[in-house]
């Protein structure tokens, strides 16, 4: 039952995507619904399985590793599946407005959208190194296709640059996989640990894989491709790129670090990863502060917010794991809301330059509200999911008396506040605001509703945290379990 449900979670969107290419255009609206709407219900079956039994191993079609496809469903992968399904569905609500099935670009957008969705589901479930490589390539190619889907020169250039770096990153990862297979003859993510000794060759192999994944997750100083790619993509695509696509490769780094090399002495490497995270937070925030375009500000904010996910490595405790996972959830919703609101503003004003956005709050109150609400979570103000994640980070740092990380997390909220208030001040408090007060309000539509729902989700995450935190605590890696 669980096996079938998991297979459907990956293959329904994939088959529907194939159907969109061959079936008549009038079917597109129906196919979108078939590919997306059953997913939350299908996901209930694996959820019951995890609640009852903790973890579940799937050997697809009876071919075991290394040649078959093996999936592992555990609390952490379940959390990623729910996050992906939830965010993709809400962003799809926006996409059904910005890429309506009756339009020409919809035929290019929706198949790629569903392939991206399916391949992220497959990636978080994958339990062997080579399958991870294949699904990572699928995620990257689908994501890049989506960036370029409107064919604007700036987006095409950003997509090309992203593609070159991502292909190189995949090769670094594959090189690591080859070296590890040569050493151990095993590819299973959860069995390698028994076969690996911390020798130079295996350390090199793991380092190559992690550097490849760091490029794909745009962690400072390997972030250079991200702002242009996320800032120039169509609205729903920017949202899913920042909310999910960069996170799934961080998730794979966690898997490699804590599950396969969990009992190695990695203190200095962990500190290095933490420092990269800290630099990402500072650099991303300062760069966001000087951008002139709203979507670029949000894109640099992603560079900064990804830094928090790296603090898990030096802190490495139950609390830190909960903090980082919760940050994944709340930032996913808040950032998706911000990009969707920015897309609505861009569509309505025709530009997202800050100088053009003075007084926009009177014309687009819902979108500015969504932006501000999501901003509350990004800044980490209570009560919001972002606040809770930061609070857990502070607790984790205090617990280990890691004062440096504590100061960093405490101070970084101010940096986020600086670049977000700069945006809100222009929109709501600019002197030119009064001159525009005669503008008509635009009627709220589905696109604004999607942004609001995600922003409200990021705030509500501050109240309804217990199930997620319990889930994460149940799925700790072997080395961290109390």
């Amino acid at each position: 039952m669980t096996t079938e449900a998991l297979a459907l979670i990956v293959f329904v969107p994939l088959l529907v995507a194939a159907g969109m290419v061959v079936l008549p255009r009038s079917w597109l609206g129906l196919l979108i619904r078939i590919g997306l709407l059953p997913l939350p219900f299908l996901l209930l079956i694996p959820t019951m399985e995890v609640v009852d039994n903790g973890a579940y191993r799937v050997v697809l079609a009876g071919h075991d590793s290394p040649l078959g496809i093996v999936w592992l469903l555990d609390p952490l992968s379940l959390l990623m599946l729910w996050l992906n399904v939830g965010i993709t569905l809400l962003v799809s609500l926006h996409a059904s407005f910005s890429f309506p099935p009756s339009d020409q670009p919809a035929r290019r957008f929706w198949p790629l959208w569903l392939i991206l969705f399916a391949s992220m589901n497959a990636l978080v479930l994958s339990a062997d190194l080579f399958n991870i490589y294949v699904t990572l390539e699928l995620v990257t190619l689908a994501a890049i296709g989506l960036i370029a889907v409107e064919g604007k020169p700036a987006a095409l250039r950003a997509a090309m640059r992203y593609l070159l770096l991502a292909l190189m990153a995949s090769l670094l990862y594959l090189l690591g996989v080859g070296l590890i297979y040569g050493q151990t003859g095993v590819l299973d993510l959860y069995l390698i640990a028994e076969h690996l000794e911390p020798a130079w060759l295996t350390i090199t192999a793991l380092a190559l894989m992690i550097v490849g994944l760091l490029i794909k997750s745009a962690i400072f100083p390997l972030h250079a491709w991200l702002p242009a790619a996320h800032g120039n993509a169509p609205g729903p695509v920017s949202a899913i790129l920042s909310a999910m696509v960069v996170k799934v490769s961080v998730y794979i780094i966690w898997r490699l670090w804590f599950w396969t090399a969990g009992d190695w002495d990695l203190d200095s490497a962990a500190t290095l990863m933490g420092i990269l995270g800290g630099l990402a937070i500072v650099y991303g925030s300062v760069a966001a502060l000087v951008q002139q375009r709203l979507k670029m500000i949000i894109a640099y904010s992603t560079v900064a917010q990804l830094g928090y996910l790296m603090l898990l490595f030096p802190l490495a405790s139950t609390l830190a794991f909960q903090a980082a996972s919760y940050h994944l959830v709340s930032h996913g919703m808040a950032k998706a809301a911000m990009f969707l609101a920015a897309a609505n503003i861009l569509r309505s004003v025709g530009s997202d330059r800050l100088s053009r956005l003075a007084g926009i709050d009177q014309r687009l109150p819902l979108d500015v509200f969504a932006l501000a609400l999501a901003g509350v979570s990004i800044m980490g103000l209570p009560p919001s999911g972002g606040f809770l994640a930061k609070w857990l980070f502070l607790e984790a740092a205090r617990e280990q008396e890691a004062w440096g990380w504590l100061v960093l997390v405490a101070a970084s909220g101010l940096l986020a506040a600086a670049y977000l208030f700069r945006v809100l001040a222009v929109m709501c408090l600019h002197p030119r605001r009064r001159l525009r007060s005669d503008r008509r309000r635009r009627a709220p539509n589905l696109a604004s509703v999607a942004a609001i729902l995600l922003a409200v989700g990021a705030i509500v995450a501050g109240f309804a945290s217990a199930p997620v935190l319990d889930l994460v605590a149940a799925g700790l890696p072997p080395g961290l379990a109390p």
Partner: protein
Amino acid sequence: MDNAALYVLAAAVLFGVGVYGLIVSAHLMRKLFAINIMGNAIFILMVAVAGPIDGAPDPVPQALVLTGIVIAVSATAFALALMVRLYQETGRATLADDNGPGNDD
């Protein structure tokens, strides 16, 4: 020097050539060639480092490399399509002199 070492050495040289090409050439076509050379270096390495099992070659790396080649072909085809589109839109097949990330809207 045994055969495996020779293959590993060849892979290392090819990988170096690929990295060099990726960095120094401006034209996207050459960059794609370079990435493909790097990929082939890794495929050679994967087959070379996996030792034989009971005297017969280990089938797993061969299967992995075969899958890897399929992925490389599709990624290259996609990259070429993107490059052609970029050329049609901007008249150039390079990334060199654009005005920085995000400054053109």
